[in-house]
């Protein structure tokens, strides 16, 4: 039954992808990749047919993984890529241009294309890291607020590319940092009874397992976005953390606690950026927020300041190795008086940092300034797409 359903789904998807080929020539590389996946799906279907035809019960368990692979392919093409490609208008083009520009700053030299979908919170689909889908809220087409979040999402593409093509060196660095940190803590135990030593080692081992591959990935992406966007990303992240409203020392799903992530962003900033009035103001506000909550003992062990700092260091090392073209943002921030209404020049990262200065120090000026800045972003986007 499922094989018949898949056959029908593949026929429909073939027709849809053929229609897209004509309708969206700008995404030819993505469409070629989808067509290759659909061709591969037909080979999988043939393998299921063969297993069914032979009919031996010992072979049947091997049909299920193939069937699940078919579900993945048809879902990826039909549920993820197709709707994204079918909704490509001027707003998506604008954000796509900004993402291309951001990707260049991040050092994603291998990025072939990117599809933008403006109907949800920031997220990335990176099964094909060189052809990712970037999700952003509709407002992103006319506002710079939260735009630094897209740099974080590009980090997921960078990590996935490193895992599949670069040997996974970044993941090894991060995992090694966690292992070394907790091994060092275990060594420093001093004289203890065997029972207390065993209990301590068990607690440390549990804290080490807290750092799943997914949580380490989030820290790496936070660090990368802060390297490339500077204080603009720090502001964007602190803002996200304030909006969350929950205890910042608690972990949620596959993400590390917000307090640990805010620290990672802050420690990633260059020393001059850490002393910028914008950053000092945000740091003070965040410290006040943290004092309103209590950190659990588990948080203190799993997310100690020394471990977060070590993870920042490992991430920076990973960025140097995996993204040699990455362009860190190191410029001093503009004084509010130097930020004009007519924003005719400046890179995307400069604009994002000017936005941060105005939002924090003179918020009353932001809305008017943003209109001009978005117009400048339109030109940046077109230049990036014209490459």
């Amino acid at each position: 039954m499922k094989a018949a359903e898949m056959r029908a789904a593949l026929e429909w998807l073939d027709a849809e992808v053929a229609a897209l080929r004509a309708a969206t020539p700008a995404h030819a590389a993505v469409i070629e990749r989808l067509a290759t996946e659909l061709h591969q799906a037909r080979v999988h279907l043939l393998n299921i047919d063969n297993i069914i035809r032979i009919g031996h019960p010992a072979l049947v368990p091997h049909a299920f993984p193939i069937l699940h692979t078919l579900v993945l392919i048809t879902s990826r093409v039909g549920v993820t890529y197709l709707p994204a490609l079918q909704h490509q208008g001027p707003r998506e083009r604008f954000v796509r241009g900004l993402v291309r520009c951001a990707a260049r700053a991040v050092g994603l030299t291998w990025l072939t294309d990117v599809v933008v979908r403006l109907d949800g919170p920031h997220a990335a689909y990176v099964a094909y890291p060189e052809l990712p889908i970037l999700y952003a809220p509709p407002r992103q087409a006319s506002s710079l607020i939260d735009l630094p979040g897209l740099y974080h999402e590009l980090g997921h593409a960078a990590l996935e590319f490193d895992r599949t093509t670069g040997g996974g060196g970044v993941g090894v660095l991060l995992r090694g940092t966690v292992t070394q940190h907790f091994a060092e803590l275990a060594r420093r135990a001093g004289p203890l009874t065997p029972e207390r030593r065993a209990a301590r080692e068990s607690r440390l081992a549990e804290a080490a397992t807290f750092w799943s591959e997914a949580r380490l990935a989030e820290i790496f992406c936070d660090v990368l976005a802060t390297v490339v966007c500077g204080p603009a990303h720090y502001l964007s992240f602190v803002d996200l953390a304030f909006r969350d409203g929950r205890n910042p020392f608690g972990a949620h799903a596959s993400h590390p606690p917000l307090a640990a992530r805010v620290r990672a962003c802050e420690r990633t900033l260059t020393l001059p950026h850490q002393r910028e009035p914008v950053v000092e103001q945000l740091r003070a506000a965040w410290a006040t927020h943290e004092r309103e909550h209590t950190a659990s003992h588990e948080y203190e062990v799993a997310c100690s300041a020394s471990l977060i700092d070590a993870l920042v260091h490992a991430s920076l090392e990973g960025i140097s190795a995996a993204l040699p073209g990455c362009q860190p943002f190191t410029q001093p921030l503009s004084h509010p008086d130097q930020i004009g209404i007519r924003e005719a020049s400046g890179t995307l990262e400069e604009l994002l940092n000017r936005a941060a200065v105005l939002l924090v120090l003179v918020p009353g000026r932001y809305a008017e300034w943003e209109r001009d800045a978005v117009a400048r972003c339109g030109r940046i986007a077109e230049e990036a797409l014209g490459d």
Partner: protein
Amino acid sequence: MSVLGYVSGQIEREQQQLAVINRAVLALRAEALGVGDALQLDRVAVKESRGRLQTFLAQLTATLAGGTADVPMGTLIEILTSRRSREDWIEDLRGAQHALASVEQLTPQHLGALTEIVQALDREFAGTLHRLYGRQ
């Protein structure tokens, strides 16, 4: 905060590993049943399958013997050890590795253990698939 960035990459890696291991075990099953031709498998495919499985089983056995649920194999080991003890698995997998390294055909017990591994990998993959695309 979305988990899509991580999960969308993770599922691709899970699928690729499952495909390699499933294809390899299927080839050995088909050889044992004498239906390799019907699945369009030749001797080269079977030989390659033995090599791939040896590499994978060596990693899995080392992780099981190390006593840790190491991150990339964590879920797989959790699923396997919920059915049988680590020691039983290590014994079976070492036997299978020995048979794979020689020209011996695998025993039904070895093939059974390998199929269980395929099913465990498939369960992990299906779980991630449901997380991404399951009807809520």
